[in-house]
């Protein structure tokens, strides 16, 4: 057994009341990595472009862009992305962000529904920026979003308080198999930050309840939760209208768990998603792999998980940032940020043995 000291929760110590530790002297995403990311995925007007999805933009991408800009300590880019996010997406009456934006459509917002992971990422990044750069206006903007999330997006299911994936279309009244949740929209590392912004909302309890439901949702043939989970009955099941799979959404869960400092018992089930040559997209009704996701940005999540659980270092080729798709590139930078911040020994060859 390796690194018991780490599994014991040492990482938790890194998480302060505002989430990540106060800005380190050196950014955990290098200037070169960030420049490459910007060149590929961030337009001059502050729009994060999903090149794997018809070059559309969404609140999630804007949130990731803001978060990565904070981690890269790039205020100018943060300002540009925030300006675009605020003026183009944050138009909803409830203060949340419209989730989808398309350049060749008029109006550009083509779906005014929100996506709670986008809102959470935006608020989380704003809170970190407010603290890192001492800008109370950004902290205030974060607080307003978090208040809206608390007011609009929470649902109680059998005693568990959860964040719904979107305002429209997921509740028990809006679909027969509702409420439907997407566990990869639960970004656990934001919970302590949100609790600091809005103490009146029980974000710590919400995160705990979400962890419970997450574990329940993984009780199936695959041992992994489906991307979209119906909670209409006591036993969670794949939601109607979505493929019953652990897929592109949920491969983020172990990354979020690691980033939030979750212990081995929570991380261990996700080793099932790690294949020889990449992450597995898995049919949760049969446990069969449907696809191998081989982009470095996906593989590094598996490598990081493996390292945290077994001490096996992350291969050097995965540590080099050469972006492919927006999604994989984003996850690679977030994983590198995690490893450099909380598990640097995973990046240092086999010295940890």
């Amino acid at each position, binding site marked *: 057994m390796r690194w018991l000291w780490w599994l014991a929760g040492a990482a938790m110590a890194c998480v302060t009341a505002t989430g990540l530790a106060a800005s380190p002297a050196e950014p955990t995403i290098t200037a070169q990595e960030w420049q490459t990311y910007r060149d590929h995925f961030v337009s*001059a*007007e502050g729009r994060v472009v999903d090149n794997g999805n018809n070059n559309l933009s969404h609140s999630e991408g804007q949130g990731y862009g803001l978060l990565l800009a904070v981690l890269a300590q790039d205020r100018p880019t943060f300002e*540009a992305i*925030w300006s675009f996010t605020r003026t183009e997406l944050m*138009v*909803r*009456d409830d203060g949340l962000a419209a989730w989808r934006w398309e350049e060749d459509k008029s109006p550009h917002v083509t779906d005014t529904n929100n996506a709670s992971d986008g809102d959470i990422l935006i608020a989380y990044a704003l809170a970190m920026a407010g603290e890192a750069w001492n800008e109370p206006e950004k902290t205030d903007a974060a607080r307003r979003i978090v208040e809206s999330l608390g007011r609009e997006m929470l649902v109680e299911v059998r005693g568990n308080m959860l964040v719904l994936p979107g305002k429209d279309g997921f509740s028990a009244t809006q679909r027969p198999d509702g409420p439907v949740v997407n566990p990869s929209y639960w970004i656990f590392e934001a919970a302590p930050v949100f609790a600091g912004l809005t103490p009146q909302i029980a974000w710590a309890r919400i995160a705990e309840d979400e962890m419970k439901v997450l574990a329940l949702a993984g009780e199936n043939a695959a041992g992994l939760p489906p991307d979209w989970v119906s909670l209409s009955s006591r036993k969670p099941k794949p939601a109607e209208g979505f493929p019953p799979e652990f897929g592109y959404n949920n491969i983020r869960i172990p990354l979020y768990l690691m980033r939030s400092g979750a212990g081995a018992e929570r991380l261990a089930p996700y080793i099932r998603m790690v294949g020889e040559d990449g992450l597995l997209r898995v049919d949760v009704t049969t446990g069969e792999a449907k696809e191998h996701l081989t982009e470095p940005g996906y593989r590094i999540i598996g490598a990081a998980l493996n390292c945290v659980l077994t001490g096996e270092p992350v291969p050097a080729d995965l540590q080099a940032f050469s972006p492919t798709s927006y999604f994989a590139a984003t996850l690679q930078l977030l994983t590198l940020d995690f490893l450099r911040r909380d598990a640097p020994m995973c990046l240092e060859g086999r010295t940890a043995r």
Partner: protein
Amino acid sequence: MKALLRLLVVAILLGQASAATAQAPAASGETAAPAPTAQPGTPDETALRYFARQGDTKRVEAEIARLKALYPNWQPPANLLANDYTPDPAIEHIWELYGQGDFAGARAAIAAKQSADPAFTPSEDLLHSLDVGEAGVRLRNASDAAQYETVVSIAAQTPELLTCASVDNLWRVAEAFIKTDKTPRGLDAYKYILTNCTDPQIRLATVQKAMSLLPRADLDPLLALERPGPDGAGEFTPIRLDLARNAIAEVLTGKVGKAGDADVSLLESSARQTKAPDDLRLLGWYALNQKKPADGRDWFEMATAADPGALSAHGLAVALLDLDRPGEAEQALAAYSGDSEELTSLYLTAAAALLAQDPRPELKPEVLDRIVQETMAAHNAKAAQELGWYAYAFEQPQTAAQWFKLATTWDPQDEPSAYGLLVASDALKDTQTVREIKSQWSAKSARIANFGQATGKRSEITPTASPAEAPAPKVAVTSTPPPASSRSSSRSCATFVPPGSLSASQALARGWCLMDLERPADAVANFARALESSTGQVRSDAAYGQALAYIRLGLPDYAMVAAAAAPLTQKRINELQIAIHTKAALAAYEIGDYKNALRALDERARYAPEQNDLLTLRAWSYYHLRRYREAQQIFAAVAATGYQDAAAGLDAAQTALRIQSERGF
């Protein structure tokens, strides 16, 4: 004054504008825009001087206006190009980005400059300008996304956006109020524009915007703010016309029943003057809608004069059809019948109505020709059917049969076409086709099922020859045969000759000849002339012939009267009684008067027993009177003789009886 206007904007946003608008006009004068919040400190002249050096006078003026609005006491420098001012190129660049609407770029540039120079603080003016610029983008996006509370909230926080120069923002705010059930506040926003903004196009567009969102009644307070235009007429005259058009269009779309008289007469007088084809046609359709086809025709004739074409012809044709002038309608549409499916259909409707006129009109060859061509092109069964009846009426049963045949090919479910084919085929003695149609249609059509019974009666009333040897048209075999000449050619009586010009005997012969040609109406007139004969036998024959002609015309009552016009042999009386009651039974049956059908059959039974065809008719009458048991008995008896037509009836009666018993009747 500016302070008052600003108060007004705030008042609108807070929903307290009614009092403020009342005062505003007196105070506003020429002023077009409310003033934004006055800023403390000194203005940032970077952008102004930068634009001046670029020689961009338009932007220089806009910038001076903006700074003056922000700093009322500020005066622009006398010499914008003076060297007493050392610009910072980085700040100039930020203003440049701002000027291009690249607010994200400007924000990024400020942050970059701050990173490079921690002592740098952007001017209040710059930050405020960016806030307002971004708020404007956000307001438009929220409005596009129908997030109206956001629109109102941005406007309330950023009244600088609500100026005559950015009137689009005011329009969007008004819309946001109206869409959130705060119409009075939306109206206040429009009133604010009409009270304070002077640009005539903006004023006109404002009322147009209001029109698209508000009911007519809500517009009156806005129209009341009308000012005279350069030509002395009210500036909203075009709007009032639009409103009149809308009012009429609402009638045409069925939303209301009638437009206001003022609206109608306003548009009428305008249309008479301008001859605008759309208006003329709109008024035409409105007249048709109001059941004034003559007015409609007049409007569409004016429209045709102003704008000849399918649109005008369409309305004109509808008006003419409403006026029962299908010939003119056909003519009006002739040139456009292929323009659209709708026009083709309308043209063929007009053509069918024209062909069906009574008396049948003699159409010019070119008219008939184009009707035929259009019918063929469109495969239109109704028009083909009318062409069939038209040919039939003009003694061309062969042609008629061909048209009916086409009609049934194009629309196999069309009973009238099948009936036409039956009639024409019968006239052509095409027994094969008659049998086919009867077997195909008898279950669905009573008149087809019963067709031929009259024919059968004719054989019954062929007194002197044996019925088997005397097929239907030989009705005229009487004790006094018509002259050989008139019998030798079926065409010998085809041309019209006034019966009064004939001798009684000639008229009698001609009457029989016309009966052969299936022209009983003309025959009636000739038999009437023959009745004037001094010879008893001729008169008796004439009465007999006329009675038969009336029976053929389906007028048994007249036949009774005719039969009494001269003494007849008992045999002929019997024959006529049988024919008359047969006809009466058929006529009653055809209009669904089954009781009288049975009564006529009972009368007839006094003179002759019923054969299978009339027994079937009797059974169907019972059936329709829900006397299923009796119907079943007769159908069963008739069917037992091998008479096909009864089989369907037996089925129907048995089904009805079963349903009755299942329902426990």
